[in-house]
């Protein structure tokens, strides 16, 4: 019998709120965080967090310098998830973060100066690599030992949660903070722009007229505990990580296969011994791109057939937060269980004729016992998580 993995803490910072309660309020009141922003030479619709780096440093009393925005967002979310837990030599505590951009917000400013032969601060480059933000977040909370970072694009956050759960089940850790963080950078805004994958308007997940995604930034962390850790801490579980699955599409570098093969494998693996009928709500990946939503719809039909539970994408609220998405949406999934609610898929009007799938469009009260959360990445890395009571 595999050991239980309990979720006892959550933390989140997104375009719709600072902290769990603000995010919950926005979800309930259908308040999206998407606006038009200027990132260097590019103007796009995105879910930006209305706090500058200076404000975050002050708010969080951060001593680390230099420090990237990615680290700051992560510190905020991890601090909330950690709450007033204490470290102890009795418990092996770890931290697993996930990121796509790492310290690129600092690197790109440096590089612009460097290329233009202006004085450039080489010291900021210590923040460049992906692993540094996990180190900064762990250092901020005093956690040492197993510190790790995963980087698998849009499925990263979900993979961090999965890895943390496996480390607990293998007996290598007693408890672990898991999640992801990504700040908006010119690099990603230009990068996704070069893929011609944006909607110049507000994104429309699962809508027949959908034209692309809106990016977002944010961070979220969960605190996972083993049975042994739970007995020591006395924390009340919010829920459990009930299942997980990961699969590669192996179809193309950037596109998902039309039948969503990798997605089907990931979802089935996450369900494990649960039947599709046991799932109360699905938080879809639903980026609003013609490719993803089409292939994810096909995959949902493959797995759930006629008994598809209520489902929605929450990316019209937050934007696509890349490595943070799987973790942000994990928080939304756990809130669905805690509150007995399913979240709406904003900006939906037209059913896709081939699939006939209609997402939830209003926050609805439901008995929510198990939630499936999908995060399907660039390059075909597909991850699904199941959260239960």
């Amino acid at each position, binding site marked *: 019998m595999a050991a239980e993995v309990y979720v006892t803490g959550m933390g989140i910072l997104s375009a719709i709120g600072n902290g769990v309660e603000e995010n919950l309020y926005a979800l309930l009141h259908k308040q999206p965080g998407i606006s038009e922003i200027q990132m260097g030479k590019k103007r796009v619709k995105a879910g930006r967090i209305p706090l500058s780096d200076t404000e975050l440093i002050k708010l969080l009393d951060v001593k680390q310098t230099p420090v990237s925005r990615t680290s700051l967002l992560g510190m905020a979310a991890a601090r909330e998830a950690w709450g007033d837990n204490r470290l102890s030599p009795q418990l092996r505590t770890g931290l697993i973060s996930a990121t796509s951009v790492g310290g690129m917000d600092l690197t790109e400013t440096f590089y612009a100066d460097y290329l233009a032969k202006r004085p450039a601060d080489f010291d900021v480059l210590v923040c460049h690599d992906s692993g540094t933000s*996990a180190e900064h977040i762990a250092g901020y909370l005093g956690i040492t030992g197993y510190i790790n970072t995963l980087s698998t694009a849009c499925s990263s956050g979900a993979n961090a949660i999965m890895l943390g759960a*496996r480390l607990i089940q293998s007996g290598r850790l007693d408890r672990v903070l898991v999640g992801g963080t990504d700040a908006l950078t010119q690099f990603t805004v230009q990068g996704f722009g070069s893929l011609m994958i944006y909607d110049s308007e507000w994104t429309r997940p699962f809508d027949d007229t959908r034209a692309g995604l809106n990016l977002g930034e944010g961070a979220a962390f969960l605190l996972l505990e083993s049975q042994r850790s739970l007995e020591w801490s006395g924390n009340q579980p919010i829920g459990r990580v009930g299942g997980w699955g990961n699969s590669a599409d192996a179809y193309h570098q950037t596109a998902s296969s039309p039948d969503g093969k990798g997605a089907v494998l990931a979802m089935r693996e996450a369900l494990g011994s649960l039947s599709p009928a046991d799932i109360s709500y699905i938080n879809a990946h639903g980026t609003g791109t013609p490719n993803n939503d089409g292939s994810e719809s096909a995959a949902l039909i493959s797995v759930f057939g006629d008994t598809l539970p209520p489902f929605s994408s929450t990316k019209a609220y937050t934007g696509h937060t890349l490595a943070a998405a799987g973790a942000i949406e994990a928080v939304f999934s756990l809130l669905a269980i805690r509150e007995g609610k399913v979240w709406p898929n904003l900006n939906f009007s037209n059913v896709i004729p081939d699939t006939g799938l209609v997402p939830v469009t209003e926050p609805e009260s439901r008995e929510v016992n198990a939630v499936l959360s999908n995060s399907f990445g660039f390059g*075909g890395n597909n991850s699904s998580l199941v959260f239960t009571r």
Partner: protein
Amino acid sequence: MIARVYIQAAATISHQPVFGVRGFAASLSPLERGSELVQPAYKEYIDPMALRRMSKILRMSITSACEALRQSDIAQPRGIIVGTGLGCLLDTEKFLSNFLTLEGLIPPTSFILSTHNTIAGQISLNLSCHSYNITHTQNTLSFETALIDGLMKIEEGESPVLVGAADEHIPFLDTVAAEWGYTRLQLTSAASFYVLSGQASSESLAEVLDAEVIAGQNGTDESVISGFLERNGLTLAEMDLILSSGTAVKTDVKQMDYTAYSGIYPTASAFAFHYGADYLSSVSGSRYVLIVNRLRPENTGLVLLKSIEA
């Protein structure tokens, strides 16, 4: 550890001529300044339409991965687990330059290839492999965390798995190193890939007993090393060889700074892993090799290898 894990195959592309070679450990010499990457004929491993886009790190990784799979005669691993410290630097640099300097549309290819998980993604594409696919990016500990992930997969009953690590050098890194006052050893590129299995065979190079990472602590605290060995019922004195980087381990046991042989790159401990496995499989009478990665003083990576005969 619950399951036993064996190294079935190993392939490394580096500044040392070790690609496809077994039994090199005893005769390897430290790198000379100005050494170059020893590259095989990539065309023999990668289709030209795929190869045309690939930077150094991708070519090295896919080729090493293919070679390791070929040696072990495995078509489909049950997991593809990759570690990288700095990822795809050539494409990152190219895309940065492009969007900062070009007017008009920006070419997308270098953005797509700059993402860290391109390596694992391309390997899965090459093999049409749908199993577990992951990329670890914890700078100098990326190989060890990838390895621990691989060990867990085998404990979970998923065997064999492909585990590897790679990093590529770009001239800009030398500029940064000079700014930071670092000039001792040459900065290099390399890729190392391994097939790990829960079953031993006549081809097995060595057994992996355990691996651990201790980050955010004072790297000169030797008690983490003795603690690690104790949990495996062993002591430092029983080691036949210690492969270390950063601060040398305080011991009389035979010790080697592996970075003198691999050059400096974040995941250089992956080279040490190959060296250690090769040593155990070719130097008779050797039983245990310990790898102590302290390339960055605040991050310690520990790997314990055992020979098949011991």
